[in-house]
């Protein structure tokens, strides 16, 4: 028993080691993937100001920024900068990209958390219901719902929500920004600036601020959360259905355990394991969804910043933000794999 355990943990360590070693080439490829194609079109300065400056001025600016040097030199310089956390400076507003990533990133994290709450609240119960009443009316309805929320682009869903609840519809909920101006100023006056609005509001202890932050979060969270809920419903339904066919569940039924208990006690937890695995892949999808949601609701997160820089054709900023997001995704997918290996012994081959 003891030797078996030792070999088990050795396998775990070995797996984690290999997985960690794979993060570096993956990150390197990602950074290269962003860097190379962006330089194929030429340097960012010609791309942005090509028609607006005289050729001489263009050359002078390019030299000042170092874009006339060999591409390999620039590449390694860029790699070095990225390692040091320097993603460049946005020419649109002279902000450091790292600052943009940190401040706006907090807003994105907050939005993703809110939306996950909605996704869990909607997705898990509906997925369970659909599996339990397989091929009956509940299942049919829930599946159509899941297909529909998947098929509705998140920006269209957001737009419809804005129309219904915004100033021209019911007029009950704010449709843009994370917080109203007065609350933001008040919180800043109190010296709270963690960039996580809800944390700041909770620290202030004022119900007015908390409710203001929550009210702003509802519509974006619902738009993004419903999209994620569609994925959860499908995942949980299909995994639960497969688990419900396994021998141990059949055995539990044969012993006369009530169906309700079979689903909740025997099958459900085991059906959740694959869901954790897939969560890793869905992180990337959620970030894409967050970009579109933020743009729709002017939620000042990474995606909103990205779309603003895209509109301004500020490709240095775009490159920096995309690189940063790619690195975050690489790290998160590593973490998810670690969780998987801990939860499910079959992963550590």
């Amino acid at each position, binding site marked *: 028993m003891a030797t078996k355990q030792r070999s088990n943990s050795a396998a775990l360590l070995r797996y984690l080691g290999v997985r960690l070693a*794979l993060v570096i080439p993956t990150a390197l*490829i990602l950074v290269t993937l962003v860097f190379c194609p962006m330089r194929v079109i030429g340097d960012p300065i010609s791309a942005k100001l090509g028609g607006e400056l005289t050729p001489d001025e263009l050359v002078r600016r390019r030299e000042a920024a170092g874009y006339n040097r060999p591409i390999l030199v620039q590449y390694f310089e860029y790699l070095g900068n990225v390692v040091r956390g320097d993603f460049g400076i946005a020419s649109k507003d002279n902000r450091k990209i790292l600052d943009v990533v940190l401040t706006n990133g907090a807003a994105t994290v907050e939005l993703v958390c809110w939306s996950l709450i909605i996704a869990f609240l909607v997705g898990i119960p509906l997925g369970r219901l659909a599996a339990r009443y397989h091929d009956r009316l509940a299942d049919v309805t829930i599946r159509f719902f899941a297909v529909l929320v998947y098929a509705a682009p998140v920006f*269209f869903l957001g737009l419809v929500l804005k129309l219904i609840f915004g100033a021209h519809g019911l007029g009950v909920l704010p449709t843009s920004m994370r917080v109203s101006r007065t609350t933001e100023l008040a919180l800043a006056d109190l010296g709270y600036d963690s960039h996580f609005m809800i944390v700041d509001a909770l620290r202030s202890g004022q119900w007015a601020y908390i409710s203001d932050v929550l009210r702003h979060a509802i519509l974006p969270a619902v738009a993004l959360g419903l999209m994620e809920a569609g994925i959860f419903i499908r995942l949980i339904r*299909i995994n639960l259905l497969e688990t419900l066919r396994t021998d141990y569940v059949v055995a539990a039924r044969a012993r006369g355990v009530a169906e309700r208990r079979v689903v909740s006690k025997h099958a459900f937890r085991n059906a959740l394991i694959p869901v954790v695995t897939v969560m890793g892949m869905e992180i990337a999808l959620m970030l894409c969804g967050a970009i579109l949601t933020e743009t729709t609701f002017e939620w000042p997160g990474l995606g909103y910043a990205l779309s603003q820089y*895209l509109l301004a054709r500020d490709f240095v900023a775009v490159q920096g933000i995309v690189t940063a997001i790619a690195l975050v995704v690489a790290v998160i997918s590593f973490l998810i794999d670690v969780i998987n290996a801990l939860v499910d012994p079959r992963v550590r081959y």
Partner: protein
Amino acid sequence: MPTLKRALRMIPGVKLLGTTHGLQRLMLLIGSGIMFLFVLVAIFADSLAPYALAQRKYQGEFFGKQQPPSADHILGTTVEGYDVLSRVVYGARTALLVVVMAVAASIVIGVALGVISGYLGGWLDRILVLIMDAVYAFPSLLLAIVVAIVISGGSSSGFGGMMAASLSITVVFVPRYFRVVRNATLSAKSLPYVEAAKVGGARPGRIMFGHVLPNVSQSIPVLLTLNASEAILTLASLGFLGFGIEPTSAAEWGRDLSTATTSDLTNGIWWTSVYPGLAIVLVVTGVTLIGESLNDVLNPLLRTRGGATTADERELEETVLGGGQAELPDAVPAAVGAPAASAAVQVHDGDPGLDGPQGGAQ
């Protein structure tokens, strides 16, 4: 009657329909109906749309901007003074063109690379897997944005714009076909028929594309339907973020939504955004319904009717589970041969590569 039934079964998809029942059949029928309509609208856009693509005047008189729905303009007009209905109809053509180009290109590239990589192995395989896994892990929309910037510098007109959009989507989808086909090739490589071909003196190229490819390609149709719906969404998202095609050269639903969001929503004008949005929802729903029902049919674990399996179901089950005979009935477009079975099971919940980025790189 039997001959008629037989003749009907020659039409691809009809046999598949016969293996479905109840809900699955309903989903397949609704999905196919929507797709049929979508393709019809795309092809006959010129005769269906009341006005031309970039038309703003009728008999020398401007339509007017942001006009509410009326007899002349059933769905109203946009902020740029276009007829909303015409834009929506022409949008179907853009979506169909882009999606067909993107999916076709990614299948050709992804499948070819997958077969080569899986069959030849070695360092080429390792490098390709590493690159594909990295691309696969990259948030797809960001990747599409990067490619769109490279190709078009952000904005483009006419056919060039459509090419740029479809190329951006192609880059996103190549790794998905690559992964599925490579894994299937790996398991097919050791099967007797490949050995036999080798002994018979066939060249690697012939073995790969003459012997292995037909046996690993059965999982592609399911993947294709899943990707097609995502491709439409990616195209719309690109348009929404400002990588649209010039409004005078093609109508694109995502771009029209984007203009509507910025200029119309604050005035409570809903008709410019709701209709293109509904068009997206309808088409993606259609494709997804087809994909879902295909998955159901091909995943034997999810079949409800025990005992009373029909002959069709048994036949399908044999082709799905009963080993990789080269003779798969071609009327079952999505039947999965044994080499591809593992790949097909991965597809079942809408994401082809659930084994995470490490999956291919052991």
